[in-house]
């Protein structure tokens, strides 16, 4: 092995050489063939892309992407010291990989990572209270971050950390989104055309052609967050009616949204409700699968939840913790989230993969993501209707 500091210098030099590369034009509804996003950026990129390729995933969805703008790791203060990070979720170990890359760049930086479910992690921090050994809480669900913030256990993030991210994803600066997860309707392209997918989730139960051919995963957290959003936006009565109508029309249950998306690709169902990246994951493993994504507009079906991070108030490494969160928002880390977890990047200038529409094009509903932690009434509603 070579001297680690030498490695680091070379690494950062490569990143620096790439400079401020061109911004990818967002490509709109290009389908999932991964054709156009970022190609012009690739053309503009000069010099080495070593910095990005280290962070970037492989496979058809990640191909042909160039260098993008945003704050580079080289522009940020160094990470040095030790952090304890509680991870809620973690994308099957992918977040762990990102941390490993950061540790490679900074030999003096060490992260103690604890993974558990999003709610388990939040409940653990709440149970630990002021004595928590965690410096950072990084979770794939905004509701769990808000729950910890509500207990007064988070430190307000400075403007330098949150400024690159749209306001929606740091409503009170107690936490900040680092990767977006959009609600979507994966549909089978043999059964439906893009125009055949309703523009609003609210009208889905009224569509006779979709009766008996939709799938959902009601025990899944992301689905419950979607119903919570509907309850907040449309009221309890309308949500109850919507749920009942879906049940009456005949909807197939799955235990999670990967299976929903997989079933769509298999043609078991024509369309379903799922977070957007699951269909991309199916697509990545089976490039010929007849599956594409549709997004509804301005309603609960267009909700964009976020994986995010919060610095915990009791930490004595606040500075380092803030810098760590800034690294999660660096162009390189954002590229990581975009190309490996197929999430929506949170900073401007990094496009999502595979011709996904940009966040601006999505028109998500106007909703405070912190309110998604108020799950109780949602569960009661779902039980009442008999879907839970």
């Amino acid at each position: 092995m070579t001297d680690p500091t030498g490695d680091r210098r070379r690494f950062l030099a490569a990143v620096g050489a790439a400079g401020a590369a061109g911004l990818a034009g967002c490509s709109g509804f290009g389908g999932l063939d991964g054709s156009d996003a970022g190609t012009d950026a690739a053309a503009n990129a000069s010099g080495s892309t070593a910095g990005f390729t280290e962070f970037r995933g492989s496979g058809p969805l990640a191909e042909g992407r160039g260098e993008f703008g945003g704050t580079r790791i080289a522009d940020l203060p160094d990470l040095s010291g030790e952090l304890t990070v509680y991870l809620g979720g973690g994308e099957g170990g992918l977040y762990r990989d990102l941390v490993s890359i950061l540790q490679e760049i900074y030999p003096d930086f060490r992260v103690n990572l604890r993974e558990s479910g999003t709610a388990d992690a939040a409940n653990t921090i709440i149970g630990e209270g002021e004595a928590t050994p965690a410096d950072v809480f990084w979770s794939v669900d905004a509701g769990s971050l808000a729950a910890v913030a509500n207990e007064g256990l988070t430190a307000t993030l400075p403007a330098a950390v949150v400024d690159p991210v749209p306001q929606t994803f740091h409503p009170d600066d107690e936490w900040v989104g680092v990767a977006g997860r959009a609600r979507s309707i994966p549909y089978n392209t043999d059964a439906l055309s893009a125009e055949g997918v309703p523009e609003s989730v609210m009208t889905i139960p009224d569509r006779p052609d979709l009766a008996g051919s939709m799938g959902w995963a009601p025990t899944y957290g992301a689905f419950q967050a979607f119903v919570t959003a509907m309850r907040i936006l449309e009221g309890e009565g309308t949500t109850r009616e919507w749920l009942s109508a879906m049940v009456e029309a005949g909807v197939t249950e799955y235990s999670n949204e990967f299976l929903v998306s997989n079933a769509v690709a298999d043609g078991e169902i024509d369309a379903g409700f799922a977070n957007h990246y699951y269909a991309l994951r199916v697509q990545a493993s089976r490039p010929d699968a007849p599956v594409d994504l549709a997004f509804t507009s301005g309603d609960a079906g267009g909700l964009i939840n976020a994986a995010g991070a919060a610095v915990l108030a009791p930490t004595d490494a606040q500075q380092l913790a803030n810098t760590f969160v800034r690294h999660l928002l660096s162009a390189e880390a954002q590229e990581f989230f975009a190309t490996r977890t197929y999430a929506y990047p949170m900073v401007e200038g990094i496009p999502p993969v595979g011709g996904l529409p940009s966040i601006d094009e999505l028109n998500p509903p106007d909703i405070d993501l912190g309110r998604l932690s108020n799950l109780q009434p949602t569960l009661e509603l779902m039980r009442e209707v008999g879907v839970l």
Partner: protein
Amino acid sequence: MSAEEPGRVRAAVGLGGDDGDEVGPGVAALAGAVAAAVLSPLAWLLLRATEIDPAAALSLVTSPTATEVLANSLLLVGVVTSASVLLGVPLAVLTVQTDLPFRRLWTVLVALPLVVPSYIGAFAYVSAFGPNGELADLLGPFGVSVPTVYGLPGTALVLTLFVYPYVFLTTRASLLSFDDSQLEAARTLNDGYLAAFRRVILPQITSGVTAGALLVALYVLSDFGTPAIMRFDVFTRVIYVELNSFGVGRANATLLSLELLAVTAVVLALESRVGGDETAGYGTPASATPVVSLGRYRWVAAALPALVTLFTLALPVGVLAMWLVRSGPGYAGGGLAFRPAFAANSVYVAAVAAGATVVLALPVAYYAGRSDSWFARATERATYLGYAMPGVVLGLALVFFGIRYAPALYQTLPLLVFAYVVRFLPQAVGSTRSSVLGVDRQLLGAARVLGASRRRTFRRVTLPLVAPGLLAGAALVFLTTMKELDTTLILHPTGFTTLVTYIWRVQEAGYYGRAALPALVLVVVSGLSMIPLLRQGGDDA
């Protein structure tokens, strides 16, 4: 010491009263301390419960949801426990007392389902029998529709298939320690086997059967994975949902947990009543020669264990193998690859937990087996409560206490091992206590008369005789620790990855292909721990 002499003599000649002073105060204090330690996490529940306004608490406990959940839980416990007895007892009789072909093989195979974690078993079932499962795909073209697996029938079926071995194992142990000459005597009196079974065997194995049934009932009450996957609303599923909703949900989860523990207490009290009288020490080890010839029904009888094996082992292993074969890039995902070190971590922590549990179970079991006092009884029963505490709730309770009162132990192996002890102590207490009861008291009396001190008698006579029970308890604790997920996720030392936490990590993100290999390793390694369980009773000698 001399003050206790009369009690010892009375016990030795079989006149043991209910004062129970055969056991020294040291043992009683030790047993009491163990019980108090494992009950301590309960304090967290009480503390949380006081945060709730009593009126709100009452309305929650009496709400339609809560009543329905209570009814569902009781129903599930009733169905699974009865079904486990109906499955476990005949299998035990077949493999111990008949000339079933391949008896030894079946003994191993029908005990093995215990090593399959319920979340894997249930998942395999949904994947095979679900509305869009493999079997539906396979049979669909032939016009055969697969019955639904969700709700009570599916949950009860899957739970029964994976927990009935508790009954099988305890019944088998009772049958093995049963003196065949009694059966022969009954049969010389012209009783048929069935009549002899009813009159002679059944009364003597009742305690074994109920001990297994109790473990089944408590497991069903505390299991979260199966009802969640099979969509049946029981306490644990609702507790979990409430915990996921924060704020008031946490308080609700606490109340429901307390209600669950109250149900457990009732089950424990009921079991004490039907537990049968087991004061007799029938020290003669039984011969393992089959006593019943099945004649030409031998092969028909073999269909029962064969069918059970098909549904409990072949099916989940087949589904796992399919995931393994099928894993393309999208199923494989990223992250840390599976490492043998995870299996080593699992084995290490499970072995430590098994050791710690039997050491702590010994005073409780010895005290309960040797004394008839109410305190001995209460101590033993109390250790069962922790077994019915859902893992998440226990984990969060230990987070709260650990960080406040034992910060040096927080997120270290000792605290994790303590959590396992709280969860699994009754498994070791049960089998050890049976062994203690099985020790012929006249032997102890003889040793004392010969001038051996109580301690020396214990070490030289009792301990060797109860060793098989301790070993069986250790094996049970080992394999249940191997598959315990919730407490491990919450309390593991940072950076300590085990088989189950790895399986959880990849499966949570939908990378089933990645879960297959560690799941198979888990099943195989846990399967090895069945060996001491099955050697018990000298069957293999």
